[in-house]
């Protein structure tokens, strides 16, 4: 069985390639060189004018299952991922029950095995995400968890965080941290600044993030554990990570499209779909994020896809859930707000959604190298599309980009040689 992707622009940052050509997939794997397809059973996809890239990897997704199946399931989250060009997604552990032991890790991976894309999972840093007692990290890694995370329930106790890092290092998995000093964010709703002052909403200072970013950087240096800072939103955090990298501390970080596409002005009509954690910041932060992406301080772009039901969002803003969906808008936002204005080259942008997260997580995907499993994304980098939330494959409709016109459209998503989503 073969699939020939003919005449596309092949962008493979893992090998520094951006050139026209064909890509052959035979029996689920990439075949390099100029080999011809073998066998009768196969087809050709005309990729003229399209980009052929390694399948996108989203290292920050909330799949909500088990426990919150009214918001999203592993199957619908994976379908949304496929529609957005992602072939691998990493679920966060804030489910109900939490993904804090072998049984839940196995449940998620079993459900994920039948899903449209590769579903990976993190394990929770602490039991029940309570921030008090370390979870059975060794057992979860043995069951298949690829990283440990305190996402949504940031560990406040520095000594416990130190132990989590020291312990995780033994199993060669990174610790992904949601950096938030919750003593600075009690009941906070939006970024501290003039917009919060005008709207009368409880302010959330950037320092709530950057204080924890520097704490976790220093704990990484202390323990030698690879630490990955999730969803960087604040100017100061970018500077801290830059400092850490110069110092040789094993720290990586991600940002999300909302933090380079929007500012806290998006809340001026009390739009609950613009309420996210960490909150949308200011123009200065957006510029710092872009600079950090351009100079390699920020390694990866993830979505923090956070689906919610309408009931979770159609309430008074201060009671609305935090989060926005992201899987089906991420690539167009990257193309529109980073590639088009030349913040990043197309190759560098794709790197942050493929090989960079693969390396952070120790995956062998994120490449179109000869012999690699054929996870491939084909997209039109110039097509103009209008975001239609009611057409999302995700169960979540909570996006502030509904009705917005963006550049870039996913044409096909291929997982292990099989087309799982197609808009040919």
């Amino acid at each position: 069985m073969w699939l020939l992707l003919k005449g596309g622009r092949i962008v493979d940052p893992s090998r520094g390639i951006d050139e026209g050509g064909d890509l052959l997939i035979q029996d689920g794997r990439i075949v390099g060189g100029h080999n011809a397809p073998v066998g009768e059973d196969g087809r050709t996809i005309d990729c003229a004018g399209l980009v052929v890239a390694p399948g996108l990897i989203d290292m920050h997704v909330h799949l909500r299952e088990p426990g919150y199946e009214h918001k999203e399931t592993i199957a619908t989250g994976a379908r949304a991922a496929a529609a957005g060009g992602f072939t691998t997604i990493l679920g966060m552990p804030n489910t109900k029950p939490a993904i804090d032991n072998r049984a839940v890790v196995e449940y998620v991976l079993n459900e994920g095995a039948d899903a449209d894309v590769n579903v990976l999972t993190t394990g929770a840093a602490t039991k029940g995400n309570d921030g008090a007692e370390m979870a059975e990290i060794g057992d979860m890694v043995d069951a298949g968890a690829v990283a440990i995370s305190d996402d949504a329930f940031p560990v406040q106790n520095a000594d416990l965080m130190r132990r989590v890092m020291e312990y995780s290092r033994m199993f060669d998995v990174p610790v992904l941290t949601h950096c938030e000093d919750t003593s600075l964010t009690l009941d906070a709703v939006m970024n501290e600044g003039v917009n919060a002052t005008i709207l009368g909403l409880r302010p959330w200072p950037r320092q709530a993030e950057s204080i924890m970013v520097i704490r976790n950087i220093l704990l990484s240096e202390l323990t030698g554990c690879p630490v990955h800072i999730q969803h960087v939103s604040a100017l100061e955090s970018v500077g801290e990570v830059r400092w850490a990298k110069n110092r040789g501390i094993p720290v990586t970080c991600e940002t999300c499209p909302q933090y380079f596409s929007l500012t806290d002005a998006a809340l001026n009509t009390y739009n609950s779909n613009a309420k996210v954690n960490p909150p949308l910041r200011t123009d200065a932060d957006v510029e710092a994020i872009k600079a950090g992406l351009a100079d390699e301080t920020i390694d990866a772009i993830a979505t923090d896809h956070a689906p919610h039901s309408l009931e979770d969002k159609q309430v008074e803003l201060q009671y609305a859930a935090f989060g926005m969906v992201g899987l089906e808008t991420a690539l167009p936002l990257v193309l529109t707000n980073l590639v088009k204005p030349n913040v990043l080259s197309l190759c560098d942008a794709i790197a942050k959604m493929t090989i960079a997260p693969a390396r952070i997580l120790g995956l062998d995907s994120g490449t179109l190298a000869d012999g690699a499993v054929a996870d491939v994304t084909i997209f039109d980098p110039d097509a103009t599309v209008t975001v239609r939330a009611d057409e999302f494959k995700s169960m979540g409709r909570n996006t502030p980009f509904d009705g917005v016109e963006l550049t870039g459209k996913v044409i096909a998503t291929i997982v292990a040689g099989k087309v799982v989503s197609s808009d040919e």
Partner: protein
Amino acid sequence: MQLQRKDILGLQDMTADEIGLILDTAISHKEILSRPVKKVPILRGKSICTLFYENSTRTRTSFELAAKIMSADTTSISVAGSAVNKGESFKDTLLTLEAMGIDLFVIRHSASGSSHFASQTVKSCVVNAGDGTHEHPTQGLLDMLTMVENKERLDGLKVVIVGDIMHSRVARSNIWGLSRMGAQVRVCGPSTLLPAEIDKLPVQKHTNLDEALEGADVVNILRIQLERMDRGFFPSVREYCRLFGINKQRLRKCADDVLVMHPGPMNRGIEIAPDVADGEFAVITDQVTNGVAVRMALLYLLLGGGSTNVASA
């Protein structure tokens, strides 16, 4: 001129012409309050619902009196606590009441933006009677009416707002309304209770009360919420009173004919000395009377012919 809007959510986006219209209308309606029979048939057949998610005596009574004087039918609903914890959602409550034929909602709610939410949820008119720490537009209007009555102008007036600016919806509505009408607004309070980047609003920021009061035409004193002390915004009532309490001696810094205002309820002896509250410069009870007049004016403008959508109905 007519008021071309369905809702009164705040003064931030209100034009000087609109504010002028409301104040003029209020002045003409105020005469009704001094009649022996306080009843006019202007809003007969209109249903007004006061929906209060927070306790309030004066604002609610003021709206209800305004509606009753104008012969509207009123319904009062008090919801204790937040609907998030129990019972019906805010959205469902609004839709249910609208389905019963409510023409205008008066909403008091502890969450900022709740009037915006309501205005997007129902087709009926919405008047914000205070949403969280966002705005309290009718208070801002009645404060301006009181200033106009006493000073015969707003343009160029030096108005000092003293106290907990951060958590005050009254302060925000005063800032927007007064600055739109050409007054010079100063805010003064402990630095912990001045919100971030307040100086990006049209105000002068002060933490020294004596400097703030220099030559002031109006001092608007905010109620200090004693629970703020527990969250560490200031160390003690004693120190607050020493630094920011308004007393007779301090008033000497102000203009000779200064007006002393307070939205109530007052903490006498804390933010305002008793002899100032009852003194010659205080117009605090005038504010209460003007509150009824302003609310009559708004109900009239929104329901009684001032608003196009109602006029055509």
